[in-house]
C-alpha cells in the first residue's frame, strides 16, 4: 500500500495514517478521532461527511495541529507531499509548521461572522495572510489582497478593502475568508463546514466559487460537511465518518449509487425525497414521513465495543438481513470491498439486495 509499491500511482498530496486525537478530560481520555486514515490527491476534492460530534472537525484541526488543549494527537502520521519528499506534520517543528499553515495548507472556517478580527480592515487581514509567507512590501501585499478579493468575486473590492468585517454580510465575509486561505496559493484548502452558517442561496454561490477556484488554481480541497447534497455537487471522493472512525470511503458517484455501510445507507435514506411526494384527492401534498436512523451518536466516553454503529444498525438488530453476533464482538476492518471502495462493516456486500436505500424505506 505504500507509494513505492505502486509506481504508476503518484504519491497523494496529503496522507493521514491511523490518526488518533484524544482529549484528556477530568472524566478520562476521550478519543474524538480514533484511527483515521485518509488521502487526498493533488487538485481533487475529498468530502468528509458525518454527524455533529463524529470527529470530522477534530480531524481537520489535527492536520494543522490546531487542536486546543486538552486535546492532543496521540499517534498516527499526517504526511504532506512536497518538493523535498513528504513531511510528517505530526512531528514537524513549530516554525516549519507555521510555514505550512497558510502557506501550503489554507483553512476556511464555519463561522465567517467571528473568524475575522473585528478591529482590522478586510484588506489588512488578507494582506497579513500574504505577508506571513511572502517577502514583499506592504503596498505589494495590499495589491495582492485586492487581486484576491477580485478572484473571490467580492462586489466592489476596492471599497471593501478598507471596510471592517462588521460592515460585510455573512456571504461576503466567507469570500474574504476564502481569499485569505488562498492568498499564498496553497496546495490544499481545508474547508470546515464553509457553508453551514450561510443561507441556502449564498451556500450555492460559495460552493460554486470553491469549485471554480479549484479548477483554476489546481488546489486540492478537503471539504468537511454534514450535508450530503453539498458532497454530491462538489466532491470527487467521499469519506463517511462515524464515532471517530471512517466507516466508508469511495468515489462520490460510486458512494451515492451503491452505499455499502449501513450508516451510509441510513444517511442517504434520511434525505428528503421530493419525488415521493404525491397528492391526495383534495390536491394536498402528502409527504412520506422522513426516515431517521434511530438513536443518537454515542459520546466518545461510551463508544460501544465492536462496530460502533451496531446499536443503531437495523441489520445488526436482525431486522433486515443476515447480520449477526460479530457486530458487537469485533471491530470490523476498513476493507476494500470493491476497487477503491472501502467499508468498515463485517457484512459489507453481504447485506443482500437491495443494499440500498429502499431497504430503509420499507
Amino acid at each position, binding site marked *: 500500500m505504500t507509494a513505492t509499491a505502486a509506481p504508476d500511482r503518484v504519491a497523494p498530496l496529503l496522507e493521514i495514517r491511523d490518526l488518533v486525537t484524544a482529549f484528556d478530560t477530568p472524566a478520562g481520555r476521550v478519543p474524538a478521532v480514533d484511527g483515521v486514515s485518509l488521502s487526498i490527491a493533488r487538485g481533487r476534492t475529498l468530502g468528509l461527511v458525518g454527524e455533529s460530534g463524529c470527529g470530522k472537525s477534530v480531524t481537520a484541526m489535527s492536520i494543522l495541529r490546531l487542536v486546543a488543549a486538552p486535546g492532543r494527537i496521540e499517534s498516527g502520521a499526517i504526511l504532506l507531499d512536497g518538493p523535498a519528499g513528504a513531511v510528517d506534520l505530526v512531528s514537524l517543528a513549530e516554525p516549519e509548521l507555521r510555514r505550512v499553515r*497558510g502557506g501550503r495548507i489554507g*483553512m476556511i472556517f464555519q463561522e465567517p461572522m467571528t473568524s475575522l478580527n*473585528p*478591529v482590522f*480592515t478586510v484588506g489588512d487581514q488578507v494582506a497579513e495572510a500574504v505577508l506571513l509567507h511572502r517577502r514583499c512590501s506592504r503596498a505589494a501585499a495590499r495589491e495582492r489582497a485586492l487581486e484576491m478579493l477580485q478572484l473571490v468575486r467580492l462586489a466592489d473590492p476596492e471599497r471593501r478593502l478598507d471596510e471592517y468585517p462588521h460592515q460585510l454580510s455573512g456571504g461576503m465575509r466567507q469570500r474574504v475568508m476564502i481569499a485569505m486561505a488562498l492568498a499564498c496559493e496553497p496546495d490544499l484548502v481545508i474547508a470546515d463546514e464553509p457553508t453551514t452558517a450561510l443561507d441556502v442561496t449564498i451556500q450555492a454561490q460559495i460552493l460554486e466559487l470553491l469549485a471554480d477556484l479549484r479548477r483554476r488554481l489546481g488546489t486540492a480541497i478537503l471539504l468537511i460537511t454534514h450535508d450530503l447534497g453539498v458532497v454530491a455537487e462538489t466532491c470527487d471522493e467521499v469519506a463517511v465518518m462515524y464515532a471517530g472512525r471512517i466507516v466508508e470511503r469511495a468515489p462520490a458517484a460510486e458512494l451515492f449509487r451503491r452505499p455499502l455501510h449501513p450508516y451510509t445507507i441510513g444517511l442517504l435514506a434520511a434525505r428528503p425525497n421530493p419525488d415521493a411526494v404525491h397528492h391526495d384527492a383534495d390536491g394536498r401534498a402528502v409527504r412520506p414521513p422522513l426516515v431517521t436512523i434511530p438513536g443518537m451518536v454515542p459520546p466518545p466516553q461510551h463508544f460501544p465495543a465492536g462496530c460502533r454503529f451496531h446499536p443503531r444498525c437495523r441489520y445488526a438488530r436482525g431486522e433486515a438481513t443476515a447480520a449477526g453476533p460479530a457486530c458487537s464482538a469485533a471491530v470490523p476492518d476498513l476493507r476494500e470491498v470493491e476497487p477503491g471502495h472501502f467499508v468498515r462493516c463485517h457484512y459489507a456486500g453481504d447485506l443482500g439486495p437491495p443494499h440500498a436505500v429502499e431497504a430503509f424505506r420499507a
Partner: protein
Amino acid sequence: MERSHGFWADAWRRYRRRPLGMLALVFVGFLVLVAALAPAIAGTKPVLCRYKGRIYAPCLGYFDRRLEPAIFAKDKFRGTYPKNLAEKDPQSWAIWPLFFQDPYRSVRADEWPGRPENPAMDQGRPSRMHLFGTDQAGVDVLAKMVHGTTVALLVGFVSMGIAGSIGIVVGALGGYFGGWIDMVTSRVTEIVMCVPTLVLILAVLALIEKPTIWHTMAIIGLTGWTGIARLTRGEFLRLKASEYVTAARAAGAGPWRIMLRHILPNALAPILVPITFGIASAILTESGLSFLGFGPPPPSASWGSILNGARSNLGMWWLVFFPGTAIFLTVLAYNLVGEGLQEATDPRLREARK
C-alpha cells in the same frame, strides 16, 4: 454612504455623545495645558528676554534647573530678574509670566517695582494680588497650584504607565501561554496584591536618603498593576479561544504576532478602563502622602503639600479649599473619563443605550 470606521472611531463617536465624559476630557486637556504652560502662567523668570544682545528663555528653568541659561548665574542674577535686567543691560526687554509670583518662595518687597512683600501666615487671605491667597511662608497659592499640576498629572500617567506595562505583559503571558507560566504569573500577582501600597511607600521613603516624587510614582506603579494583570489575563484567556485567533494561527501567525496584533487590540478597551480609574487613585494616593508630609520635599509644589500647610492653622481655609477642589475635580474627571470609556467600548452597555 456611511464612511467606514474602525472600533476606536466607533467608540469615540459614542463617547462624544456623553456630555459629562466630554466635559471631563476637556478638563483633563485643560490640566495638560496648564502643566505645559505653567512657567508662562506664574513665575518670576521671564518667558522670553533679550539680554546683552541675545534672546533667552529663563522660564524653562522651572522645568529643569539646567535649562536656565548659565549667563544669568554668571552675572549674579540670583533668581531676581526684573531689577537685574534693568541694571545690567539697559537695552534689555522681557516678556513676563501672567502672574509674577514664584511657586517655591515668597516674593520680596520691591522685587517687582513698587510691589510690597507677599503677606505671610494667616494674613495671606485671597485678594486681587493673590487670587488664591498665600501660605504661611508667603508663597502664592495660585503659583504653587499651577506648578503642582505637573506633579498631579505626572503621578497619574507615570505610575499608571508603569502599572499598565507590567500588568498587560504579565496578564498577557499568563493568559496566552497558560500552564506553568500562568501558574507563576498568577501567584506573583496574588503576592503583590497583598502588599499594602501606602505602608510600602512610607517605608521606602523612610529608607531613601533623598526621596523624590519619582520614587512615589515608581512604588505606586510597581504595586498597582495587579488588577490590570488579572483583567488582561481574563481577556487573553477569552480571546485566545476566539475563532479569529484560530484563523490567524491557521494562516501561520506566530504566538507574538497573535498576542500583539490579534488579541491585544481587542483586549485594550476593557483594560484601559481600570487604568483610567488607576490614574485617579494614584493622584489621591500622592495627595494623601503629601498631606501627611511624605510628599516631595519642600522646593517642589504638590497640591497635597499645600493642604499639609493648613494642618497647623485651620483658619487659613484657602489652603484647604483651592487645592482640595483641584484634587476633587481632577479625580472626578478621570473617573468620568473611565466611565465614559467603559460605556463607549462595552458591547453590552452599548446595545442597551442605542
